[in-house]
């Protein structure tokens, strides 16, 4: 089960970005890059050589390594294939949140390791916005914990199926809040524009300016896995969870790709927010999730 899910995540994660980019291209009236572009990019980068900055230490290389490890480990805690995740234990969702925090510690430290002003700027923004996104994620989990019967991420996420009728308002709020968190954590529009090359405006892309070759390949791959994981997280709350494993897996994976289409539409429909507005949107997400908690507590 662990191996199967790992293979699925590794194989399908870059596809989601492909779907997003294809959606954006279609809306813009372009043909766009191939659906599998990220696979080619990563394959090419892994074969290439690289140059390291004189300023850097091992921390610079630990950034991409830990980012990928953390994202893959987190993916195994999601009920993706069956309705119970390969790794599930009481309190696993706290680990889920904290492995991403570990990855953030090392990616931002890697950015500071170069001594570059741009990358420091990106790192500062990344840790600042995470302070507002993390409580929203936790509040959503709290609301789900009230509805679920055991404290594992699998049961928290799959409880939504049977409770959509009884607690629909709370679930809608959770999904709304987590979609904002999904966009923020993965540096998508309206928080960040993955296409921009104006360094001053960026968050995630600017942190990895100095990574090249295989290390950059890992960065891209880890980013794709993280996006996939957050997509699957939101999808699991929205979806019913059929008992049949094959049906469950098909439904979930399809839903993740649909979320990809949704992100593509969002990115085509709106621009990036000004930096000062970003905290306001994230606080909104936190408050929405807080209302969900109030609703389930009443």
């Amino acid at each position, binding site marked *: 089960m662990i191996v199967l899910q790992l293979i699925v995540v590794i194989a399908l994660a870059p596809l989601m970005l492909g779907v997003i980019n294809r959606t954006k291209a279609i809306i813009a009236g372009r043909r766009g890059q191939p659906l599998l572009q990220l696979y080619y990019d990563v394959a090419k980068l892994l074969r290439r050589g*690289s*140059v*390291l*900055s*004189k*300023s850097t*230490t*091992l*921390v610079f*290389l*630990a950034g991409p*390594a*830990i980012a990928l*490890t*953390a994202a893959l*480990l987190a993916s195994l805690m999601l009920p993706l294939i069956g309705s119970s995740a390969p*790794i599930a*234990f*009481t*309190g*696993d969702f*706290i*680990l889920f*949140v*904290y*492995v991403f*925090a*570990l990855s*953030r*510690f090392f990616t*931002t*430290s890697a950015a*500071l*390791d*170069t*001594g*570059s*002003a*741009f990358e*420091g700027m990106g*790192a*500062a923004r990344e*840790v*600042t916005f995470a*302070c507002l996104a*993390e*409580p929203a*994620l*936790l*509040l959503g989990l*709290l609301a789900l*914990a*009230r509805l679920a019967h055991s*404290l594992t991420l699998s049961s928290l996420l799959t409880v939504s199926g049977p409770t959509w009728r009884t607690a629909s308002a709370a679930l809608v709020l959770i999904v709304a809040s987590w979609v904002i968190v999904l966009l923020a954590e993965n540096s998508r529009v309206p928080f960040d524009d993955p296409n921009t090359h104006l*360094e001053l405006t960026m968050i995630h892309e600017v942190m990895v300016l100095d990574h090249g*070759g*295989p290390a950059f390949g890992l960065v891209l791959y880890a980013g794709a896995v993280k996006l996939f994981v957050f997509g699957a997280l939101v999808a699991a709350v929205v979806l019913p969870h059929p008992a049949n494993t094959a049906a469950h897996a098909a439904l979930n994976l399809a839903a993740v790709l649909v979320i990809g289409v949704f992100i593509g539409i969002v990115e085509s429909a709106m621009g990036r927010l000004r930096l000062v507005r970003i*905290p306001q949107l994230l606080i909104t997400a936190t408050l929405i999730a807080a209302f969900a*908690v109030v609703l389930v*507590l009443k």
Partner: protein
Amino acid sequence: MSAALITAAAVLCALSGLPALLSRRSRVACRISTALLMTAGAIGLVGAGLGLAGPTTTLSAPWAIPGGALRIRVDALSAFFAAPVFLLAGVGALFSEGYWPASRPRAGYVRFFYGLLAGGLAIVMTAQNLLLFLTAWEIVAISAYFAVVTDDDDETVRNAAWLYLVASHVSTLSLFALVALLHATTGSWDFAALPAGTALTAAGHAICWLALVGFGIKAGLMPFHVWLPGAHAGGPSHVSAMMSGVVIKMGVYGIFRVLTLFDVPPAWFGATLLVFGLVSSIFGVAFALAQHDLKRLLAYHSIENIGIIVTGLGVGVVAGSHGYPTIAFLGYAGALLHVWNHSLFKALLFLGAGSAIHSAETRDIDRMGGLARRMPWTAAAFLTGAVAICGLPPLNGFVSEWLIYLGSFTSIQRVTGGWVSPALVVVAPALALTGALALACFVKAFGAVFLGEPRTAAAARSHEAPRSMRWAMLPLVVGCFAIGILPRTIAPAVDRAAAVASGLHGTITTALAPVQTMAMVLAVLAVIAIIMVKLRVGNAPRNLTWDCGYAAPTARMQYTSSSFARGLVAFFAWAMPPVVHAPQRLPLFPTEASLETHVPDTVLDRLLIPLSGRIRRTLMVARHIQSGRMHAYLLYIGATLLVLLFWSAM
């Protein structure tokens, strides 16, 4: 056996500094003192280990003071709190060999008060007699004052130590009242159980409030924390490690101990602890973010971590008093484990900071940079502490925070009705916010101090710390990893201490089993991944940081710690308004300009100091009658007597 060993170790700690103190500047005498203190630490650790594993033991001797008795009682709770004292005593002694060698002024002085501090602390954590407790409490307060003020050429150090002494005595004053009240209620001069139902009486309320103020000042709970940042920043680094690692824990111990005296601790007190804990944790880390001084930053983080501990305790008390033993046990166990964890990583961070400051010759984070390539061992130790204090897996901070989180989540799932669930629900998002802010703060501190390029010539000249300083950090690094990766090995000790503290039976061993497995998996995978990346690109050619093709980068262009934290500090500006010294107007062709910002402590600098100044000015009016001449005072006495005489006649 455990009581005898701990007492012997405490006495040995207290006396260990004498050889160094009496023989001035002798290298051999300093070595002997260090060896004595390390031996005492080892004996004490064995004693604490026996106390945690075995039965409760007592040691009693008569004492001439009325009501006093030299009674030491080592139960699991005392042993649990005594263990870090002895560990840090030994580690700090070893560190001081390289950090404060015999050739440095006051080498004997600092060793003597350091040992006395450790000995006093061990007695505080184990005293059964209230008067012995108070005596040891004062020994700690005073020896900590002398240890902090070691570097008394510096005016800021003198002021900080003075403030600490004043705050300490306000704390002691509350404890005098507390001890008197305990004696009046129980009729005993020992820590004796209060009569059933005391929690609901006025005496019970008074006991709780006195304990909160008296112990809260020592623990550095907000808003009683005013003394803490200065005192922790001012002392020598191993003294700071001791202050932050265990001295503030004696306040936490006091709260724990007083709670054990109640049959059922009052629920309102649990809620009060929650409020103080959450305020301390969030604002502690917010103030930490705004600091430029590495040691003040770490000091504010102590307030944050004490906040987390007290939050866990609050979860325990609230859930326990409402009859939810599972949740209560998680709260107590999380709080206790965080006591150990904080001792380990905070001491490690202070020792690492001490090496960095020693080497870069400044405490200002924005004047360091690039130390990792010059002092890799210190950098690795500091990084371990930084990851641990952020509560990140697979290190120890995660385990204790996980327990408190689990308490909060279990409460929202199981508890219905009343205010318990809403109260405990706040804990999870607040901890998440605290954790994310701590992460921001330590990425800033580690990044600005150890990564990038040196910002000053002194930082560029920095060199690795002497061997004794590096060895001293090793046990703490091992401790952070061991509790993080093998939490089940120490779970029985936490269970016993939590059972004494809460009066409940429970265990965290089974709950921690998957955490242990996952921490191991994460650690192994992360190491493998780093090694693979290192093998693949580690030998790549080296060149300047690309930085979008900027041709001539200088160290001054790096993001500084202030700029890194600016967004978050602005976010909290309503609670801690920064003071900005910026040029008012620049000429058309600016020549030289400077910008300086700092964030004063809201409670101390914006409330207490202006308030006490105003009180002093008001009382100046009374100065006219204080002439200092004897006959004037005789006149006052005579006049008063005359007035009283007339009054009584009427």
